[in-house]
C-alpha cells in the first residue's frame, strides 16, 4: 500500500463521496415521498391507481437497478430523442426503485397496526381521516423503522451501480483510478474506507433507533 498515492487520491474520493451523498440523498427523498403516496394508494384501494401502483411495485422490485438505469439512460433517449442528464437519471432511477421498496415498508407498517385501533378510534367518534392521522400513521411509522433503515442502507449502497451511467460516485472513482493507474490496492482501500464513512453512521444510528423503539415497543 502506497500512502502517497492514497493521500493524492483523497480529493478525488471526496468528490466521489459528495456525489454519492448527493444522489443518494435526493434519490431517498423521492423514494420516501413516492413510497408514502403509493402505500396510501394501495392501502385505501384507490381504484385504477391501486392497480398501477401494484404493477409499479412488482416491476421495480423484480428487476435490477442497473437495467432500470440502462433503460432510462440509454434506452429512453433512443426512443424519444431527448437527452437525459446522468445525475437526474441516477436520482430518478434510485427514487423509483426506492419508492417501490418504501411503499412495501410503509404498507406493511400500516397493516401492522391492528384494525381494532381504527375501530376504537371510530367508536370514539373520530372520522376516518382523524383516525388515520392521529392513531394509525404515528404507529405505522414506528413499525416501519427497521425496514426503513434497511432500505436507507440498501439505497445508499445501490448508488455504486451509477458508475454504469457515467456518474463519478465513489465506486466509479475507484474503478477509474484502477483503470488509469493500476493502483488497485490503494483504490479499493479508499473505497472501503469511504463507504464506511457514509454507511457506518447510518447503520449505527439506525440500530440505536431500532433498539429504542423495540424497547418502547407498543402493545402489551
Amino acid at each position, binding site marked *: 500500500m502506497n500512502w502517497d498515492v492514497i493521500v493524492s487520491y483523497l480529493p478525488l474520493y471526496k468528490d466521489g463521496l459528495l456525489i454519492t451523498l448527493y444522489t443518494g440523498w435526493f434519490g431517498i427523498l423521492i423514494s420516501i415521498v413516492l413510497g408514502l403516496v403509493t402505500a396510501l394508494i394501495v392501502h385505501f384501494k384507490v381504484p385504477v391507481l391501486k392497480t398501477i401502483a401494484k404493477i409499479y411495485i412488482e416491476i421495480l422490485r423484480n428487476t435490477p437497478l442497473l437495467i432500470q438505469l440502462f433503460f432510462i439512460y440509454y434506452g429512453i433517449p433512443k426512443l424519444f430523442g431527448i437527452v437525459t442528464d446522468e445525475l437526474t437519471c441516477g436520482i430518478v432511477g434510485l427514487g423509483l426503485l426506492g419508492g417501490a421498496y418504501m411503499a412495501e415498508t410503509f404498507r406493511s407498517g400500516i397493516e401492522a397496526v*391492528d384494525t381494532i385501533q381504527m375501530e376504537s378510534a*371510530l*367508536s*370514539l*367518534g373520530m*372520522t376516518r381521516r382523524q383516525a388515520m392521522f*392521529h392513531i394509525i400513521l404515528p404507529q405505522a411509522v414506528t413499525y416501519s423503522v427497521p425496514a426503513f433503515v434497511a432500505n436507507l442502507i440498501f439505497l445508499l449502497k445501490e448508488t455504486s451501480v451509477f458508475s454504469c451511467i457515467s456518474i463519478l460516485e465513489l465506486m466509479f472513482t475507484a474503478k477509474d483510478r484502477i483503470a488509469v493507474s493500476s493502483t488497485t490496492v490503494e483504490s479499493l482501500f479508499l473505497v472501503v474506507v469511504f463507504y464506511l464513512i457514509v454507511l457506518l453512521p447510518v447503520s449505527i444510528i439506525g440500530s440505536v433507533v431500532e433498539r429504542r423503539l423495540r424497547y418502547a415497543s407498543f402493545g402489551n
Partner: protein
Amino acid sequence: MADTVLTINNINKSYGDNLILNGLSLDVHKGEVIVIIGPSGCGKSTLLRCINALEPIQGGEIRLDGELIDGNSRNIAQIRQKIGMVFQNYELFPHKTVLQNIILAPMKVQKRSKDEVTEEAEQLLERVGLLDKKDSYPRQLSGGQKQRVAIVRALCMHPEIMLFDEVTAALDPEMVREVLDTMLELAKNGSTMLIVTHEMNFARAIADRVIFLDGGEIVEEADPEDFFTYPKTERAQKFLDTFEYESVKHHDNEY
C-alpha cells in the same frame, strides 16, 4: 316507562351467505343495564359492532335517540360519540399516555378545551384509582388497568350508552374483579349499558335484564333472578349447565 335510548328493529346481519343476526329486535331504556349472554359464535360481538356501525346491516334498522345509525351516513361520527364502546383486547392507543388517550377524542371530536377535558379525565381516573398512572404509557399498565382506562376514555365522551364486549375475557382473575367493580359502580350511578360477558355471577349482580342469544336470535329475555334460577327455555338451561360441575370424587378415601 323510562325513555327508550336505543331501538333495534328487526335487524339482519350476514357475512356472505352466513346469517349471523336473524331479525333481532331490542329496546334499551335510559339507565337500564342489559347483559347479553350466549354460546360462543352466537353473534354477541356482531350485535354490538352493528350498533356502533362498525359492521353494515342487511335489514332492519337501529336508532339512537330516534336517529338512524348508518355507517355510510355523513353524521355517523356524530352519532358514534354518543356510544361508548370497550373491546375485549385493551385497545388503548399505544403511542399516547393514559391522559392523552382519554382527552384525544373529546378535544378533536367534541372540540372541548384541553383544560376542561383534562380536569374531567383526572376526576374519572381518580374514581377508578388510576390517577397516578395518568402519564404512563399503556405498555406500563396491567391488563386490568388498561381496561379501566379504556372505560374512562369512553366515559369522557359522555356517551348515552356504553357497550362492553367481554372486557374481562383476557384478564387474570384478580384484574377481572377490579374491572367488573368499575362497571358495577357505573351501573349503580345509572349509566345505560349493554354488556356481553361470560361471568355469570357478575351478570346476575349487574343486570336489569338478561338477554340469552343463540343462533342469531333472542331465545330468552328475563329478569336475572328468574333467568339464573329457572330459565324458561331448554337451550338456556343447557347453556347454564356448562358452568356447573358434578363432583367426581367421593372424598371417602383418607390419605
